Each structure stands twice: as structure tokens, then as C-alpha cells.
């Protein structure tokens, strides 16, 4: 088994095919999208492949250490930051192919007109523990 992070971006991913903002969909389309996401998570849970899923607020700040005895410096948010993570799903699957397959399914969530969004998702393998048998 191997763990993968499926990353969804607010910004920074290539534009999806069906690129209409969610508040311009019809209420039924919004409903269908939410149902699709819930169903997919439930299905992965029942197949024993779901680890975690979280959504992030678009608001955030940059923070860094500013020296002994000083409070950390905060800055931003920067409108020009290219990459903005919207959320993630962590899965534990048998193969790389399976991870790609599931990311593809997630990307097919319905959007405007009930058509798949074709949203780009980033798939990142977790660095693993060193295996016991290495030769």
C-alpha cells in the first residue's frame, strides 16, 4: 500500500475545462456536486482507501521567525501568490495507477450544466518508511 495526497487548488492549477464559478451554477447543480463529493468519500471509506479529507479557508498569512525575543513576523496574504491550496484528500491505495484513477474520478465531479468540471488535481506520493528488505 502507498499513500498519496490529492491536492485541490484555489489558484495555481491549470484552468479546468468546465470553468464556471460555483455561485453561477443552478442550485440543483450545486446540490449534485456536493452529493458527488460526499458519495466518493463514502465509497473510498468503505473500500478501505480513505485516510483523511480536509478543506482550507482561502485566507492565510505568511509567518517567519524574527529573532530571539521578538514576535514572529506575519505578512500577506499576497494576491499575487500563484499557488493557493483549497483542500486535500489522503488515500492509501495499492498502486500508483489506482491513485491516478481515483484522482481522475474526483476531477469528474459535476459542475455547471451537470457536466464534469475536469478540474486539475495534483497527486503527490508520500515519502515512505525505509522497507525492511532492501536488496
Amino acid at each position, binding site marked *: 500500500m502507498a499513500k498519496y495526497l490529492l491536492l485541490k487548488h484555489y489558484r495555481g492549477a491549470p484552468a479546468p475545462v468546465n470553468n464556471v*464559478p*460555483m*455561485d*453561477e*451554477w*443552478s*442550485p440543483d*447543480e*450545486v*446540490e449534485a456536486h*456536493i*452529493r458527488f463529493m*460526499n458519495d466518493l468519500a463514502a465509497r473510498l471509506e468503505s473500500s478501505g482507501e480513505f485516510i483523511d479529507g480536509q*478543506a482550507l*479557508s*482561502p*485566507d492565510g498569512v505568511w509567518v517567519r521567525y524574527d529573532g530571539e525575543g521578538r514576535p514572529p513576523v506575519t505578512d500577506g496574504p499576497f494576491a499575487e501568490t500563484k499557488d493557493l491550496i483549497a483542500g486535500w484528500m489522503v488515500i492509501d491505495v495499492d498502486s500508483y495507477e489506482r491513485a491516478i484513477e481515483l484522482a481522475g474520478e474526483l476531477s469528474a465531479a459535476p459542475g455547471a450544466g451537470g457536466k464534469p468540471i475536469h478540474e486539475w488535481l495534483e497527486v503527490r506520493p508520500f515519502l515512505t518508511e525505509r522497507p525492511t528488505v532492501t536488496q
Partner: protein
Amino acid sequence: MIVDAVELRELVPRVLSVLVSRGADFATAEDAVQEALIRAVSAWGDESPADPTGWLITVAWRAFLDMTRSASARRNRELRVDTEPPAGAIPSADDTLRLYFLCAHPDLTSSSAVALTLRAVGGLTTRQIAQAYLVPESTMAQRISRAKRTVSRAGVDRPGDVGTVMRVLYLVFNEGYSGDVDLAAEAIRLTRQLAGLVDDDPEVQGLLALMLLHHGRRRSRIRSDGSIVPLADQDRSQWDTELIAEGIAVEQAALGRDQLGEYQVQAAIAALHADAPRVEETDWVQIVEWYDELLRFADTPIVRLNRAVAVGEADGAPAGLAALAEVDEHVPRREAVAAYLHEKNGDLELAARLYANAARNAPSLAERDHQTRQAARLNQDLQRHR
């Protein structure tokens, strides 16, 4: 007679306070009580002993002695603890109450006080508490043992008071529920217990009433898929009339004691909502009056925001928007309220934009989805009329 898990947990604070009153240190005594609970579950099987409290006290005390012995053996010290428990008085209500105060010690952070209260007073296991707050069990175990060390160090000299205990229970209630433990029901159980111990503060009754009134509406507030149903759209036939009736009775008794406080005022507002058979029959004028009262106790942006909604219902959208203008720009959910009031005022385009903003800035997924639906609904209407 079979004692169920909740009945068993009812006994926890009494058992723990007996151990502490016999001189056991709080941290070890608490572990010993947990140990006794685990043994009770397997030992009692189909039938519980005639005196469950006595059984738990005896077993917890032995567990405490074992723990103390092995700890002192590790330190190569002499065993000085008697095998027989010293004759201790039956736990009094004051002892149990002191336990509540200890777990809400002002030196504890709120998350620690919550965890310690659920374990030491509520009798939940670390695993159950961890599941309820969606953190790993080892993290919760560390949080609880740090909390116990803090409390032991700070001593019993200046524990919390009824006010800090109520804040902790309110936090537990507000967290809702996840995992196999219903935190809202647990908070109600503990607040009910607290109300039985404290007879000089109607705020405890106010808090209990507030919880009962909100809990009574829970089934209609959230759909099975987790989505939010606004108050106006709730199916009131699904409300738990028994809980609501109890909440109203408790609130009336509290108000009758003529010592008004924040929780009683919040409960009064909840009672007015619960009292309306249809949303159109809500007594908004009186609700605004209670919000004015609430401002005297807690002048916070959130109270002002909620008051603006009530003003919008009582005196019309323009009045609500005027009240909203005085609310801090940065308070969460302000845009959602602004959207609602502008929609009510007939400014649909502005309302749709504000709903979309509210979705972007929503503090929870359920709210984000809800605000997105609102924006989608208005945008669809606008398109149809174009």
C-alpha cells in the same frame, strides 16, 4: 439490573471525589477510576452489584493502591499505604462540585479543561474524547495528563468556579458531535448534574435551558447529508417538544429568581424561537428586546450581528441594515447576514454577490455549501428575469 454506560458514568464524579477525599492525589485517583470503570464493564456482565458505587469505590481504591505501590516501588521507596481504605465519609455534593471546579481550573487552557472535564467528571475514555475532537488518541492522552499535572501543581486552593465550569460545558455543547459520543447530550447530562449541585446561581439553570432548547431543535437543523436548514425552513413538527417544554420550564424557574445573566438571556431568546408554531408567528419585537438585554452582559460583535438579524425581522430590512452598519466589519458571518438583509430589501444582485463572498469566507464546509446554494438560487432568479 444492568447498568448502562451512561448510568455507570453518572457514578464517576462521586467515586473520584471519595478517592480524593481519602487523600489520593488527583492524577492517580483519576487513572484508578478509569481502571475501575473498565473492570466494571467486564465484571458486571449481565448483572451489576447491589451497590455499584460501593463496588466502584472499592475497586478504584485497590487500583489506586496498586498504582501507588508500583510507582513507589520504581522509586525504591517504602510502602506506606495501608491496604484497607481509611474510613472516608460518603461523598458529599460539595466534594463532587469541587471536582467540577478542579477540572475547570483557570490555569488550564480551554481545550485542556474540556478534555479533563469529559474524562474526570464525565467518565469518558481518552479514546472516546479523541474521536469526538478528531485528534489522535495519543495526542488526547498527552493533553489530559498535562492537564492533570497542571491541576495537581496548582493545587486545590484556588480552583475554578461555577462561571468557569459553565464556560467549559458550553464549549462542549457547542462542539456538537462526531464519533460515537454525542457531546451535546453529554454536556446536557453534566449541566443537569451541575444544576443539582448548585442552588444559588440561576445561570446554571439558564445554561441548562439554553442547551435543552437548542438540542430540542437539532433534528430539524441539519439534514442527513450534513447540510444546514435555516430556522425559517425548519420542519417544526420534528422538534423534540419534550426537551423544549423542559427547557422552557427550567428557564421560567430561573427567570423567577430575578438574578438575570447571560445564559438566561440567551435561553429566553431560544425559548421565543421555540415557542412559535410557525416562523411567521415569531415574536421578533420581544427577541430584539432580549438582544438589547444581552448587550448589557456581553457587548460582542457576534451579539450585535444576531441583533441586526432580529431587528431586520421586527422592523424591516432597512432597520436591520442600519443596525448591521454598526457591527464590526471583520466579524465572521457578517457578509451572510448582509446578503440576507439585502435580499429581503429587494437588492438581489448585491445579495447574490454578498452570498458568494460569504461562501468564500465561510468558517465551515456546511456553511460554505449553504451560502453557495443561496448565491446560486439568486443568480438563477436573476437570469430568468433578464
